[in-house]
Structure formats: C-alpha cells, structure tokens
C-alpha cells in the first residue's frame, strides 16, 4: 500500500530507527511500510501519525484507483 510515511519522517528529520523506536516496532517494519510491502494495522498507522505529527489522511489516504 502506497503511503507518505517516508516523506513525513524525512520532513521531521527522523531516521527509520528513531521512528521505529517511537512507535514500538523494528526498523525493518518501518522500511517495509515505506516501500509499501507491509500493510500496517490501523493502530500502527495511528501510532506513526502521532509520531510524525500528521493525520491519517495526510500520511495514508489514497484516491480510489479506477
């Protein structure tokens, strides 16, 4: 699933490791989320949003593909 986690993280100047520690997961999980190769649960999505001070809409929203 495409998302803007990497943009949000880099904007705040956080490394993958730092974001991972903030949300309580491993660095690999953050890496896979950024690549769109792992779909996080809503709970983890919210944790990431809290960590990067953005809303779910801003980080995870996608327009429906036709």
């Amino acid at each position, binding site marked *: 699933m495409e998302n803007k986690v990497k943009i949000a993280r880099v904007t705040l100047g956080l490394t993958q490791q730092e974001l991972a520690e903030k949300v*309580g*997961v*491993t660095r*690999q*999980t953050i890496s*896979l989320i950024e690549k769109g190769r*792992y779909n*996080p*649960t809503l*709970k*983890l999505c919210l944790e990431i949003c809290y960590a990067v001070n953005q809303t779910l809409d801003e980080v995870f929203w996608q327009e429906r593909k036709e």
Partner: protein
Amino acid sequence: MEKIKDERLQLKNLKNIRITFIVQTLGILGILLYDLINYGMDGMTNNPVWFVFILTGVINAYLSMSISVEHEKTKRSPVTRLYISLGVITLISLLFVTFTALTNGYNVMDGLLVGGIVFVCLVLPAFYMYGLRQKERDE
C-alpha cells in the same frame, strides 16, 4: 527472551507456528500410520499420540465453530436453531439406542448407554453453537 511487540513479527510468528503445526501433524499421522500397518487398529489407538491427535481435532472443531457461526447467512433465531438441533440429536440418539438394543449380544441397557453417550457428545457442541450465535447476535 524479550516479548515481541512488533505486529509484523507477531504475524510472522503465527505463520511460523502454522508451518510447525503442519509438520507436527504430518509427523503424528506418520507415526499413527506406522502403528496401523505394523500393529493394526488396536496398536494405533493404544498409542498416546492417537489421543493427542483426537484431542487437537476436537479443539480445532470447536474453534472452527466460532468462524462458522460468523459466516452464517441465515436469519433464523438461535433458539429455533437450538430446538431443531436438539430434535435431530434426540432422533439420532434414539436410532443408536434402537440399533444397539436390537444387535445380538447387547441389551436395552447397552443401547441406552450408547445412545446417552451419543446424545451428550452431540448436545455439547449444539449448546456451544447456541452460545456463540447468541453472542454474535448481541454484537
């Protein structure tokens, strides 16, 4: 060992456990098949592994019931379904009582015993399903 908090790793762990379970079940089936070939049906059922296999089968069946209940599409009330189940179970138990009692070497008491065991074995899952349906309805 530290407790895993990462949801992705927890999911991966569950998938690993599934693979382990498959291998373990294949191993158990292999052992039971070996016993069946070499020592016959009694030899197989005397092995404690047979008890483990049956127990896991029963647990799996009970756990699957909660999934089946949520997958049901019928709108019939749980009470009606329980009454239907109890009717069918009573009928099946009575058939067991009759056929056992009519078999040579067995009497009515044996029939009642077999019928009673069948009744209890079938009535427990019926009430369990009823409980699950009621719970699902309340949600």
